[in-house]
């Protein structure tokens, strides 16, 4: 019954498709070289950082259409903290009525950076923690990364003026055995929200089989999240990457809903207009240097809003297709409509 109501709600949300979550891939430079990076960014990028004025010009039509504080600009990369003008960009976004946030590895997030970003009106932040000290440093391929991110976690967990934040963990066979200890660590550091995702076969992870969970490990992760949610000491949840059958409502606040292209858009480093930055870039719908962002949002994105093209291969006869609609967009590539990985079937078998 609730699932049917959700499916109706999802259909209506798709029809009205308000843009209220916009990624800005402001740089492809990064200060780390993580083993599982989905964007495959580089220390020395082929692209220069996008000038802030170019981005601001592209999003100015949003200011006319949407009310103040209803559009969140999620600044990502690469690593956004490598941009020296990050706080200035954020301050200008606030001045124009946008909320803004960053996704960061936390390596460069020290007290001075924290003060600068808070003063510029940062409204949300996500930090990555991928294990205890040795595991995290091995993932991030840089010693000291764990200590740096824990320092950043202390800064944000003790910041009363930050409306919301969370810690994300990419769960893999390397760290699944450490989750219980990580939970104690995060609770001890006053962390309130912890989100999990698995590593998709994209970016650098395409060629690294050692990062993917098998069915039993995936079930172990789901059981861990269910148990943690029951305890109620930290708000644990699974990300929006897949429909999970009987686990779906137990590991999240609400049903699975991939909002890419429905409420979520992006401006990528080369100006491409797409949805989440981890989606195959050939799904891009336009470019800010040649198109009007709102026109593209209003009139294109057909493949994102009508997912019927995904009902092929293992999805063709799947009895839960209507709940799942072919899974999250980042698990598809443009050459083959079949989903790359199905958590539902992995959990069932």
């Amino acid at each position, binding site marked *: 019954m609730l699932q049917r109501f959700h499916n109706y709600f999802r259909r209506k949300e798709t029809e009205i498709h308000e843009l209220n*979550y916009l990624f800005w891939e402001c740089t492809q430079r990064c200060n780390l070289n993580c083993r599982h990076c989905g964007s495959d960014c580089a220390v020395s990028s082929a692209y220069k950082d996008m000038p802030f004025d170019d981005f601001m010009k592209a999003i100015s039509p949003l200011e006319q259409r949407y009310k103040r504080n209803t559009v969140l600009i999620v600044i*990502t990369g690469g690593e956004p903290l490598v941009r020296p003008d990050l706080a200035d960009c954020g301050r200008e976004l606030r001045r124009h009525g946008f909320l803004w946030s960053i996704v960061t590895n936390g390596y460069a997030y020290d007290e001075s950076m924290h003060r600068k970003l808070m003063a510029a009106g940062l409204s*949300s932040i996500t930090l990555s923690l991928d294990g205890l000290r040795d595991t995290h440093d091995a993932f991030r391929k840089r010693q000291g990364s764990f200590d740096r991110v824990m320092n950043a976690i202390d800064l944000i967990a003790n910041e009363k003026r930050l409306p919301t934040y969370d810690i994300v963990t990419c769960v893999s066979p390397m760290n699944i055995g450490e989750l219980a200890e990580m939970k104690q660590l995060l609770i001890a550091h006053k962390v309130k929200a912890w989100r999990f995702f698995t590593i998709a076969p994209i970016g650098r992870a395409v060629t690294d089989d050692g990062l993917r969970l098998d069915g039993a490990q995936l079930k172990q992760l789901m059981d861990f999240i269910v148990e943690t949610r029951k305890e109620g000491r930290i708000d644990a949840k699974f990300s929006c990457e897949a429909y999970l059958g009987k686990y779906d409502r137990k590991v999240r606040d609400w049903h699975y809903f991939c909002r890419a292209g429905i409420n979520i858009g992006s401006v990528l480093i080369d100006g491409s207009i797409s949805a989440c930055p981890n989606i195959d870039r050939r799904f891009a719908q336009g470019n800010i240097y040649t198109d009007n962002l709102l026109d593209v949002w209003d009139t294109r994105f057909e493949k994102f809003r009508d997912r019927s093209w995904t009902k092929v291969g293992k999805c063709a006869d799947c009895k839960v297709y209507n709940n799942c609609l072919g899974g999250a967009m980042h698990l598809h590539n443009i050459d083959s409509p079949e989903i790359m990985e199905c958590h539902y079937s992995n959990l069932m078998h």
Partner: protein
Amino acid sequence: MEKHKTYKFFRGMLMASAFTSMMFVMQACYGTPNNALIDDEVLEYTVSGKVTAKSNSEPLAGIKLTIDSTDYETVTDSLGNFSITLNASDYCDMTFKFVDESGKYQQLDTIVPVCNSPELNIEMDVNNAPKVS
């Protein structure tokens, strides 16, 4: 968009309900939590303080306080006190502008690090008095 008017009406009611608002809390797989629909509306903080005359420390009533780039404004009471509630995701460093509309006291603009300023004590100069740095 007109055809979605009824749905949008119910949508607004759902968003306002604590029970169903979780439907609208979105978060891309690799994105940050989105507080645009809920948390930002409810998480507020208050900055308060007192405005006095620099010459004799008397409280100044009726001083208008505005904050640059926002719609916030308030007026000091008969004891010179003010209190203003801000949105949590506004800047920490905000320009507070104190104006005496009678013109007796000089306008005072000051950047206030409100993150760490629960209490502000502001002194205003008489308009013709030499400016003291």
